[in-house]
């Protein structure tokens, strides 16, 4: 086995795309600024030079248009990777994803497969305000026919993106702008991480923290703090939201008897709610305390940094919630703000 190399998250994603595109000429990358500009966040740096304008395609600003082009191309056998500059902009193309991509296979009785990846950064970066800071995974994960993938490490980013590109279904692949520079070991050689399989990023016996993407790191930081208090948190990284690896979550909760979900994005009818519903139903007898969640406060994202910090889940909030779930504090369950979040 060759040694793993240290790559940034961004490089890992690029490597996945490059390797897959070398392997299969039916794969192409399309989106705003992916080519000549080398990517708004430089994920596709050098790819135009490598693959040429035929396969690395700059688009006009027309998300509905090029998402639809991707769907049409996938219908007849190409394997498009469609980059949204950020997932915030996918909302103008929501109809293409929800009404077309997610439903084609079913409506046609399986006559068409749709091997297409929609990818780009999601979630808050820093002070980008309400229209540019949305974690929209809960919207897309609601929709059968889509898969939803959100890696948390460079290794997973590479392995999951390769799996997503090889998958014959429309995959919503959400990265994180603030993680692109994150470094980590990436196995050398062929490295594919199957979709739908969660990963225990840190074992522990006292409480299960379920997270994905950026929030895995928030959970890990919280776990570090908790260790100092003699509390061992297990961190389960979902990696794929749809299909959800229910077994991994339930197995962890069966060991720890306590569960806190850490989710960026709004609480109401989010993926964290789904996980709590899962744990409450299937893990009811295992639980020693009600499952909880730490999410964004239930507000549009404010610009001011100090407000933004209050809105986003923090290790501190996770720690406080864990303490409460373990019965160590009697803190109020909800932040004392009008725009409520849990």
């Amino acid at each position, binding site marked *: 086995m060759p040694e793993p190399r240290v790559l940034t998250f961004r490089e890992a994603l690029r490597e996945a795309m490059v390797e897959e595109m070398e392997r299969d000429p039916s794969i*192409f990358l399309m989106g705003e600024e992916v080519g000549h500009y080398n990517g708004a966040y430089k994920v596709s740096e050098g790819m135009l030079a490598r693959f040429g304008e*035929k396969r690395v395609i700059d*688009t*006009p600003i*027309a998300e*509905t*248009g*090029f*998402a*639809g*082009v*991707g*769907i*049409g*191309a*996938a*219908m*007849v*056998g*190409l394997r498009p990777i469609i980059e949204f500059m950020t997932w915030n902009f996918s909302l*103008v193309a929501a*109809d*293409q994803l929800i*009404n*077309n991509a997610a439903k*084609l*296979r*079913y*409506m*046609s*009785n*399986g*006559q*068409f*497969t*749709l*091997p297409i990846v929609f990818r780009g950064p999601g979630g808050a970066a820093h002070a980008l305000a309400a229209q540019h800071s949305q974690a929209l995974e809960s919207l897309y994960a609601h929709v*059968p*026919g889509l*898969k939803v993938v959100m890696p948390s490490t460079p290794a997973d980013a590479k392995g999951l993106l390769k799996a997503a590109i090889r*998958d*014959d*279904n429309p995959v919503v692949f959400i990265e994180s702008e603030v993680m692109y520079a994150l470094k980590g070991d990436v196995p050398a050689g062929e490295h594919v991480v199957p979709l739908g399989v969660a990963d225990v990023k840190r074992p522990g016996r006292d409480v299960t923290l379920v997270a994905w993407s950026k929030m895995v790191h928030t959970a890990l930081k919280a776990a570090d703090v908790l260790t100092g208090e003699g509390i061992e948190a297990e961190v389960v990284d979902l990696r794929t939201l749809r299909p959800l690896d229910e077994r991994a979550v339930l197995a962890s909760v069966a060991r720890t008897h306590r569960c806190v979900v850490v989710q960026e994005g709004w609480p109401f009818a989010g993926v964290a709610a789904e996980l709590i519903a899962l744990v409450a139903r299937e893990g009811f007898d295992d639980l020693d305390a009600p499952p909880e969640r730490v999410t964004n406060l239930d507000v549009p994202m404010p610009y001011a940094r100090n407000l933004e910090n209050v809105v986003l889940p923090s290790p501190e909030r996770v720690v406080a919630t864990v303490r409460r779930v373990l019965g160590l504090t009697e803190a109020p369950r909800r932040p004392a703000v009008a725009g409520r979040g849990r």
Partner: protein
Amino acid sequence: MDATLLLGLYRQMALCRRFEEAAAKAYSQGKVSGFLHLYVGQEAVAVGAISAAEPTDYVVATYREHAHYLARTGDARGAMAELFGKASGCSGGRGGSMHLFDAAHRMLGGWAIVGGHVPIAAGVAFASKYRDEKDVTLCFFGDGTANMGAFHEGLALAGLWKLPVVFICENNQYAMGTPLYRTLSVEDVAVRARGYPMESEIVNGDDVLEVREAVRHAVNRARRENLPIFIEAKTYRFRGHSVADPATYRSKEELRKWMERDPIRMLADRIQTLGIATEEQLGALDDEVKAQVQDAVEFAERTPAPEPDTVGEHVYA
């Protein structure tokens, strides 16, 4: 004039007409559910256009696509069984009238969000160009589609990237109950094509030969020169928007005027005038078609509905 061609077109248009008459009847009997949008009166457009393309060219259409499906596949059974919600339907009973698909015949739907399929058609054409295949995509849509953002973006990308797609606007004068002049701020939908830019042509959509000629020319150019072309076919639907719509928003007089241009009758007249076939011979052809439709109805009736426990299949590959 090529007798075989004319008779073939006649047969196809008659098949569409008879098919939809039978579908409407089945609907009134409660055997067909959901929305049922008839193409009666517009047959010359789909039949003329699709006859002008190669069988390997792609067809992308709307929820009003029985005729497109039939013109492309000839498969009345598959379509009728689909309307009946049967497993033997062309979409396994999962699609219904609005979602007729036949991958093998490159019939790519059957889409029911106005305008949503326009970029998809551009994408199919993109794939042809990408693979250096010489197939052209025909994209059908109604006049009411011209104000949709997806229409604009699809045309803009096709224009920019010079994709081999022929956009065919089936201008039947109405979007549901709304006459076009109340929603379109320009005289013709084709005016909009100039902004992308795209050559356009306006044709008499009730004259199957005129449609065919224009589309043949467009398909050839699209294939040869790799570019999109816009055709607006002026026609009229004789029935309501769907079978549930009594279409009281238009005058009997208006309907009568257009029915005088019934594309099937016009073609029949031409065939007779040219001495290609007599009224009786056309009647016999029509009987054949009716029998085919009757067979399709019987097929649809006797084949089973999908098994309930297959409901979870085909969500994912």
